[in-house]
């Protein structure tokens, strides 16, 4: 079983587990169809033989996160251009990176997050985008036209952005207070035994530093040590380190307060029983992420890939995607087409004064990642 299939199984089970949500179950089953239907096909779609008469074969291999595309987007793209999109799924950036480290197996478009855009570009795993083929870039909000993690948008076009914050069960908060500080997760025993943190080492250490008043970038070994000691002290109050399924732990009442992404929380808040669930980006600020459309080096069909990226950045297409996935969009044309319930949703779009304190984590070399990882291993082993 491949990782993507495993992830799909997990999502089906997540749907079953939640019980209330038929939608997520159907989504999961739909995704299996895609994974099974196209996973097998992909093997035969290696470096494409150009059809007689030049040009590229009308197919495209798209490597995406699960439940991260509009319901009809791929079919609409086929209707518009005649290009068949084979979508397969990956579960996290590390899996994506590990896979491409061993060579491109025939993918044309991938969706790494900001830090991994830098990492993959530095490692020579991405193709430079031909900006002339992506006129819809003009639809992006001004702040997304350029990016610190990819100067000049040479390798990536933003697909969504997301921010880490605190998901909580309103009825369990002491005095009905909103847990608007990282203190409740990292440095307080108020919700001892009812806390779940993301198991991503870099995110945890960086947010701990943010709570201590530092930037998320340029941390020294001493800064890391301080955060490590804080988390070691907090460990007995932590119920679990989760793999980005914190929203499920919250919904199933396993925990009352959890570190999660806004998009994931927005999805469960919009579902049955979501009225007792809240989400807040702490006042100290947080980590921003942006998932980006990129073309991996060695992509067999770069022309189709450019066409596809340009198509996704279209306002109408982007709006349809946002309707399904409920993540914040960097696309102005798409956002303008969305209903008020999306545009003014404080979970999807946290208040600007809080966002102003949020930062993107930048890639600071493999040694730094290994330092974060070892700190995390020490925390978990203690």
């Amino acid at each position, binding site marked *: 079983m491949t990782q993507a299939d495993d992830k799909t199984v997990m999502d089906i089970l997540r749907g079953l587990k939640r019980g209330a949500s038929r939608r997520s179950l159907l989504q999961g089953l739909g995704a299996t169809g895609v994974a099974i239907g196209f996973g097998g096909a992909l093997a035969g779609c290696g470096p494409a033989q150009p059809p007689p008469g030049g040009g590229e074969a009308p197919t495209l291999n798209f490597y995406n996160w699960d439940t991260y595309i509009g319901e009809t987007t791929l079919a609409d793209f086929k209707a518009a251009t005649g290009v068949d999109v084979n979508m397969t799924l990956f579960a996290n950036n590390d899996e994506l990176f590990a896979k491409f480290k061993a060579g491109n197996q025939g993918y044309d478009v991938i969706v790494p997050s900001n830090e991994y855009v830098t990492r993959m570009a530095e490692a020579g795993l991405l193709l430079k985008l031909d900006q002339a083929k992506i006129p819809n870039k003009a639809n992006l909000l001004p702040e997304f036209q350029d990016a610190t993690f990819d100067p000049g948008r040479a390798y990536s076009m933003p697909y969504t952005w997301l921010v880490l914050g605190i998901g909580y069960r309103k009825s369990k908060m002491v005095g009905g207070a909103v847990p608007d500080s990282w203190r409740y997760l990292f440095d307080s025993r108020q919700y001892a035994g009812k806390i779940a943190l993301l198991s991503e080492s870099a995110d945890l250490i960086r947010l701990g530093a943010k709570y201590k008043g530092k930037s998320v970038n340029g941390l020294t070994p001493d800064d890391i040590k301080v955060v490590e000691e804080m988390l070691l002290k907090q460990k007995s109050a932590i119920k679990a380190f989760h793999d980005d399924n914190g929203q499920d732990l919250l919904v199933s009442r*396993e925990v009352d307060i959890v570190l999660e992404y806004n998009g994931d929380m927005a999805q469960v808040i919009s579902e049955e029983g979501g009225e007792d669930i809240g989400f807040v980006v702490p006042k100290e600020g947080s980590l921003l992420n942006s998932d980006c459309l990129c073309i991996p080096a060695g992509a067999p069909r770069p022309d189709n890939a450019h066409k596809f990226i340009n198509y996704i950045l279209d306002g109408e297409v982007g709006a349809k995607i946002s309707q399904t996935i409920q993540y914040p969009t960097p696309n102005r044309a798409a956002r303008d087409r969305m209903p008020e319930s999306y545009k003014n949703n404080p979970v999807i779009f946290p208040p600007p004064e809080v966002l102003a304190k949020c930062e993107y984590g930048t890639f600071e070399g*493999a040694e730094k990642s290994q330092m974060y990882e*070892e700190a995390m291993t020490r925390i978990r082993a203690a």
Partner: protein
Amino acid sequence: MEHHWKQAKGAFAAALAPPGLWLALFFLLPLGAMWLYSFGENAGLTEIALSGTFANYARALEPLYLGIFFKSLAVAALVTGLCLLIGFPVALAITFAPDRWKPWLLLLIMLPFWTNLLIRTYALIAVLRTEGYLNFTLEWLWNAGSWVTSTLGLGALPPFEPLALLHTTFAVVFGLVYVHLPFMVLPLYSALDRMDRSLLEASLDLGAGHLRTIFQVVVPLAGAGVVSGVILTLIPALGAYLTPDLLGGPDSQMIANVIERQFKRANDWPFGAALSFLLMYLTFIAIALQSLAGRRTAGSRR
């Protein structure tokens, strides 16, 4: 009738070549590459320089990682012990069951293998979590008890507090025992089933009780089955990664979880490879001990 294999070398080689080739191509070759990586260092983001360094092994032998190794070993040993404790009576019961039941009982033991490990683990989550089936059952029993005490005029029991079962080391051990029990029962069954029943009758005729017969006759006779059951359970339990990941709490990480993170999050393949090989050496040692023990029992019987 009996031919020595040396007299049919051609046929022997022909029969051995495909599996041998398969083994070399898909097992030894990748394993060899990993072995080389374990003596390498990261040079850039995707390159590994094979410098022949022992630094990865030195780091793997630091107290932090050794501690995790020993903790994993302790968990695996506990799991194996529990499997033996539960599996032995089960295997014994199947051995003494009527012949027409045996295939069905064995089928029941193997039935869980028809379901993906991930699905079985998720099913356990649904059983163990705070709002899970186990807590629902306990709550129902508690409320029933409360109804009894209040009708007896003793007053109602305090409200039910669900047990925190999921995300604990208990859940990890529970999950691992559940997953590995068949690996223990099957070799035990095959050893017990071959046992000479007349020895049991002799033991009982000569005045030994049932328990004494089990411990002094059956258990020693099943020795080989016990050893292979222990090895078959201990080794996969030692390398377990899905179960501690999904059922475990903040301190339930096992060595396989650390290895996985080296290949993914930390992007440190050489160190991950060194940790993997240390785990494999431990396994080899266990198997060597088994064969030594096997030789000794074989020798003492002669």
